[in-house]
């Protein structure tokens, strides 16, 4: 019938209005008193008594809470996680990097040859300003020492700050992405839970413990 299209249009917009906004207000959104209380895990009344200053601020509409899209465990961001203990300094990553942006300098270490060929890593620069995050360096690492990271807020004001140095890599929290690391995915590891992954639990072929070695090499013979 003539004119029904107008009402259909009104119904469509009204449905959208009732459904509410779908915007994710990254990085944070404003909340009222109820939202702020829910964020700290208190009932609004407790919140009002225990933290009156925050409660007034929230009631006036100036409180913010974090608002992010939940990332998948395989999400690989713009950083790297590197396990110093696992790395031998073989520089496979540097050799395979299509852009040649990984720079490794090593020096001989005091490690006995019988314990494995391990060098001191003096320089490990990854210039993520030129990186395309193809992940080949991660794929070729024979010791599962290099992992894609799960962070993505790595904006800087100057290009030189985009170079990740070895000290940063050492100091960084180890929350590797499970991309190309099925062993971590099988263990149900979620990097976005904030859980630190220890170095001896990050690889495909973990070194057997002393008991296992004794069993294999002494008891079985």
């Amino acid at each position: 019938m003539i004119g029904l299209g107008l009402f259909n249009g009104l119904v469509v917009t009204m449905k959208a209005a009732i459904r509410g906004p779908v915007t994710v207000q990254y990085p944070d959104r404003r909340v009222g008193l109820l939202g702020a209380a829910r964020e700290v895990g208190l009932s609004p009344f407790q919140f009002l008594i225990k933290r009156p200053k925050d409660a007034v601020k929230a009631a006036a509409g100036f409180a913010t809470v974090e608002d992010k899209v939940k990332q998948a465990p395989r999400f690989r961001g713009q950083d790297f996680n590197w396990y110093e203990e696992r790395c031998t300094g073989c520089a496979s990553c540097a050799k395979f990097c299509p852009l040649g942006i990984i720079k490794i300098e090593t020096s001989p270490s005091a490690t006995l040859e019988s314990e494995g060929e391990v060098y001191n890593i003096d320089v490990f620069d990854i210039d993520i300003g030129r990186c395309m995050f193809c992940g080949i360096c991660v794929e070729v690492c024979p010791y599962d020492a290099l992992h894609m990271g799960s962070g993505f807020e790595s904006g800087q004001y100057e290009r030189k700050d985009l170079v990740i140095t070895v000290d940063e890599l050492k100091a960084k929290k180890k929350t590797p992405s499970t991309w190309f690391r099925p062993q971590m995915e099988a263990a149900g590891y979620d990097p976005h839970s904030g859980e630190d992954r220890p170095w001896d639990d990050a690889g495909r072929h973990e070194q057997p413990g002393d008991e296992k070695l004794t069993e294999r090499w002494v008891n079985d013979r």
Partner: protein
Amino acid sequence: MGPNFLDNSFFRNIYCNLSESDDIRCSGGGWLGDGLLPGGFEWLAFLITAIVMAMVLINLVLGSVLIFIWAERRLLGRFQSRSGPNRWGPYGTLTPVADAIKTLFKEDIVPTAADRWVFNAAPIIMMVPAMMVLAVIPWGTGTFLADLNIGILFIIAITSLSTFAIVMAGWGSQNRYAMFGAMRAVAMLISYEIPMALSLIGVLMLAGSLSLVSVVNAQDVPFILVQPLGFLVFFIASVAEINRAPFDVAEAESELGAGYHSDYSGMKFGLFVNAEFMATILSAAVIVAVFLSGGRGWDFIPSQGWFIIKMVPVLFFIVWTRASWPRLRIDQILTFAWKGLIILAFINVAVSAILSFVWPDPSTAELWLMAAINFGVLIVSVLAVGSWFGPGTAGTPKMAHGDSLPRPRPAGQPSGGDS
């Protein structure tokens, strides 16, 4: 017999404090006593009270513009699955204030080729009709600046003044887009003046007066029920008059930049925006006064409160339609006015004339009877006019031989001369 505004307690207090009026409503005096001014100075008391009233009303309406801008942006956001402004102040309520400050401090640019006098005068002239309409609207019992006995005529006459401002802005800018917007606005506003005025004739026949106060007093049954067809035509025409979607071709963003105010910046642009939003609020106020029985209602809320409560759904519907319906083409808009609305308005005038001839002084029961008849007339006439338009034919350019598209020519036939 004192001035009409003595029905309002706030203004009565001011007036009775000052003057030694012998009006019965002044017998209790004001807050401070009675007759602060000596006898013979009633005119001064009247002047002071009138200035206070004007200041209060103008500032309230300007303040409500800010609230309306915020509410409209929030609502539009909701309708489009967004949040709308939400950062500055609780739920973004201070966003219009920030916008106003920004507008005030922006550079005021006048194009080199512009006609300076016309260009500068246009925004001021745009504000004038909005301010003047304010005077005759009865915001509640006794809350009005002037009870003009030609109130509705005054409104129709004054609101069309804003066309001048739009033409001046378009002409003064020396800009093609602005000129296009202005010409479209003129064509549209002239077309919609006619159904707007015609649709009010039915109301005038019922009320027997052009004064808005009398119209409100006559509404024992709200005229939206007694005059549904008149309300429909008036509502559409007033949305077109205030240049809002779906009739916003004058400033069609996607076609003309910003239309007639393309070249304006700073506070002049702010005046245009302010005047537009003020016109929206005031047209909602006129609709409430004429069709929704103004400030009448039950006693537990003051009459001004009823007026504002009734304005809210009208404004909400205007925003809702803006979010829902696409903008019409200029020829569709004009066709709609001349072939649709004017016919509907004439039908309404004819039916209302017959009904007021049958019941010259209608009681409440007769008003309800009229409402039933008029609803029947509404459905029949809208269906009839709508089917005359037919789906998809509105405004389609017709070829000379009656087809809307040229027929494919048989092969081998020479082109031209097939009549």
